[in-house]
């Protein structure tokens, strides 16, 4: 057939609803373009994550240019998986001069904690960095825990912070161990700005993005007042990992533990969301992300997903006029590595909108849930502006507090208590004369995620 080059989106949930449709239709559509994705659409099969696509309005004007938001909500199943996946973890530890004293001691005990939590199936490597980066322990199974702890205890303070080389070395350690069936993660712990080696932010983030394409995710743990929150947040964000701000040294072990727990609950890795637009549709933006645009498509990286977690992507579309009727304006496709089956999977959902000439239908078609998500996405943007404004001293503390208070109320309103608490913390920071940027960066990074367990 001539049209075989066109993309086919087989598992359209709407398909089966069309009256009188041939049961063969769903079979014929099977098979993923490009090939390797596994479709597990059979009833009873367990999908680690599901995707749902909500449109801001189920109607649009057929005779006008219009805009509309889409929310792609991705949910990881909360139950059932049983055995956890083994992890292949690299600890990338900053032992620069500023870590001297309690921070270094707490970091060491946090690492000991991690070793205790790991099992012989897990793989651990340790990279330490100051002026240069060195492998403290190459990737190996966690069998002799006492010996590993001995390695960690030998760590002493150095001078500068060579972040770029440390990330490269950490990634190579993760890559040296077998990836199949493991949750790969490099955990970066640092307390300062990069001061040695390649210090260019764009190169550092670029490296992370490149490693991500090889399946390595970074989690960034920032400690103390000196590190660069923007850099660490984007390292985490661009690679699908987590970002934490650790205020006091005694909290280091707790945060390490929390991250490890998260890792042990991961059910989907390398999560990517691709929006395929139909004709006369444009993606204007995906909030909080930098999409890679292709021919009628836009793709973004999402965070690895742990059990019971929900994350949403808010997408703004431009719609052009057309004859009236029902259209699939876009298909969102989520591809990920299923941590349970160890296989790449792809799921998708359609956005269906009816184009009409009747304005009263438009008024009736609004989905409040989408509007709320858009509000949250906008709030996240305005937080980012506040952070920038405070840093450049264009926003006064009083204005910032007002802005934060408004955002906090909005979050509370929408049941985002975790994020609202973070904002409260930032407000307290300002009142206490401290800089709230590091806390806020974490709020922004986690704005689109929700944990229900």
């Amino acid at each position, binding site marked *: 057939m001539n049209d075989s080059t066109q993309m086919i989106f087989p598992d359209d949930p709407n398909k089966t609803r069309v009256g*009188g449709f041939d049961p063969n239709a769903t079979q014929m559509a099977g098979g993923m373009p490009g090939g390797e994705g596994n479709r597990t659409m059979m009833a009873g099969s367990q999908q680690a994550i599901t995707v749902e696509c909500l449109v801001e309005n189920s109607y649009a004007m057929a005779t006008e240019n219009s805009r509309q938001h889409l929310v792609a909500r991705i949910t990881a199943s909360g139950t059932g998986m049983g055995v956890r996946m083994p992890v292949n973890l690299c600890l990338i530890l900053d032992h620069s001069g500023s870590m001297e004293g309690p921070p270094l001691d707490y970091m060491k005990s946090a690492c000991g904690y991690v070793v205790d939590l790991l099992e012989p199936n897990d793989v651990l490597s340790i990279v330490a960095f100051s002026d240069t980066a060195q492998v403290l322990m190459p990737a190996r199974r966690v069998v002799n825990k006492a010996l590993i702890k001995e390695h960690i205890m030998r760590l002493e303070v150095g001078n500068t912070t060579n972040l770029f080389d440390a990330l490269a070395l950490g990634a190579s350690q993760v890559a040296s161990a077998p990836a199949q069936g493991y949750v790969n993660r490099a955990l970066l712990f640092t307390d300062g700005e990069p001061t040695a080696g390649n210090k260019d932010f764009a190169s550092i983030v670029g490296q992370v993005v490149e490693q991500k394409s090889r399946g390595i995710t970074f989690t960034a743990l920032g400690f103390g007042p000196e590190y660069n929150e923007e850099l660490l947040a984007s390292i985490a964000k661009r690679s699908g990992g987590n970002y934490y701000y650790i205020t006091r040294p005694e909290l280091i072990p707790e945060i390490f533990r929390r991250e490890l727990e998260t890792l042990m609950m991961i059910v989907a890795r390398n999560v990517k969301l691709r929006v395929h637009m139909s004709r006369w549709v444009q993606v204007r933006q995906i909030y909080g992300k930098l999409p890679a*645009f292709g021919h009628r498509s836009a793709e973004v990286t999402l965070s690895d997903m742990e059990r019971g977690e929900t994350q949403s992507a808010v997408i703004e579309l431009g719609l052009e006029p057309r004859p009236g009727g029902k259209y699939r304006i876009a298909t969102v496709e989520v591809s990920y590595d299923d941590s349970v089956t160890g296989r790449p999977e792809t799921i998708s959902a359609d956005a269906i909108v009816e184009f009409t000439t009747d304005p009263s239908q438009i008024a009736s078609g609004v989905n409040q849930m989408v509007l709320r998500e858009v509000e949250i996405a906008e709030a996240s943007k305005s937080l980012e502006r506040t952070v920038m404004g405070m840093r450049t001293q264009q926003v006064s503390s009083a204005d910032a507090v007002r802005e934060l208070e408004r955002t906090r109320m909005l979050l509370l309103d929408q049941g985002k208590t975790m994020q609202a608490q973070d904002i409260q913390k930032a407000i307290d920071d300002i009142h206490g004369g401290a800089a709230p940027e590091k806390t806020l960066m974490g709020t922004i990074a986690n704005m689109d995620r929700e944990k229900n367990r």
Partner: protein
Amino acid sequence: MNENMTSDATQVVSAPAFEATQYAANVDCPVCHTPNPPSETYCMDCGFMLSSAPVDVSDMPKPESVGKLVSSDGALEFPLKRGENTIGREAADVLLVNSTVSRKHGRVFVEDAGAFIEDIGSANGTFVDGVKLEPNQRAEIKDGSEITIGSVVMKYIAPELAEPEPIACEATQEIEVEPADDSAKTEELEEPAEAAPEAEAAEEPEQSIAEESVAQPVGHLVPKDGVAALALCEGVNTIGRREGANTVVVSDPYCSGRHADLTVQDGVFTITDVGSTNGTLVNGAPLEAHAARELQAGDEITLGRPVFTLEVSNA
């Protein structure tokens, strides 16, 4: 008598099997004319729900097309409106989420005198065909002008060429009729801007459905039991039970999902059974599958069970 009954019983299988439907012909989208495999619910190109009929809006006021800005790789496209269009990284008409673009970067004005662009004090500047604009100084842009906003390179496409004009739809009878001619259409898939097929004079879907060139039926299949006659068009009419997979839908359980093709070319009508379960008969004589048979006006055609008479319209 007895013999007749047995032969009937062997010919007509009560539950229609699905095999015959697997190799169904493509379904052309009534909106954008893209051929779709019969398994698709929505048009692969424009997303239209293929089991429904489009509502013609060509008599409604349309937004004036005043050109658009398209990124150099073609991935981003911004239809412009008359008057002021803001350019920027946030809440702009031309929204460019890129760190080299300022929040409020510039503006495009579309006026009777032409299209103009202005930089409103951006950090990284605006260039037209390589020439940097002074802040708050308007520069005219013409079709094909290259506009650089920060590091984003865009092209201005003037209105005459920007027109997306597939807005009128076909005659929407209950049975969708449209000659299928895949070979002529597939090339268009590559070119989203050009929606109306030019190759076929027979079905040029222009502004108004009143125009006589639109899918004028050249004949009808008139059912024996006298319900609605099914319209036939010049070209291939695919006949079958399955909606969305056929241009002529016969909703009788004895008719296969894809049953037969009825081709009309220069006034000559031919019918081909495409491997139906219960067969096709012309004046009582069964056809061999995949063998074309010429028809005359008044011929009696049996599609599985239902019987039709071919009626030919006067040209």
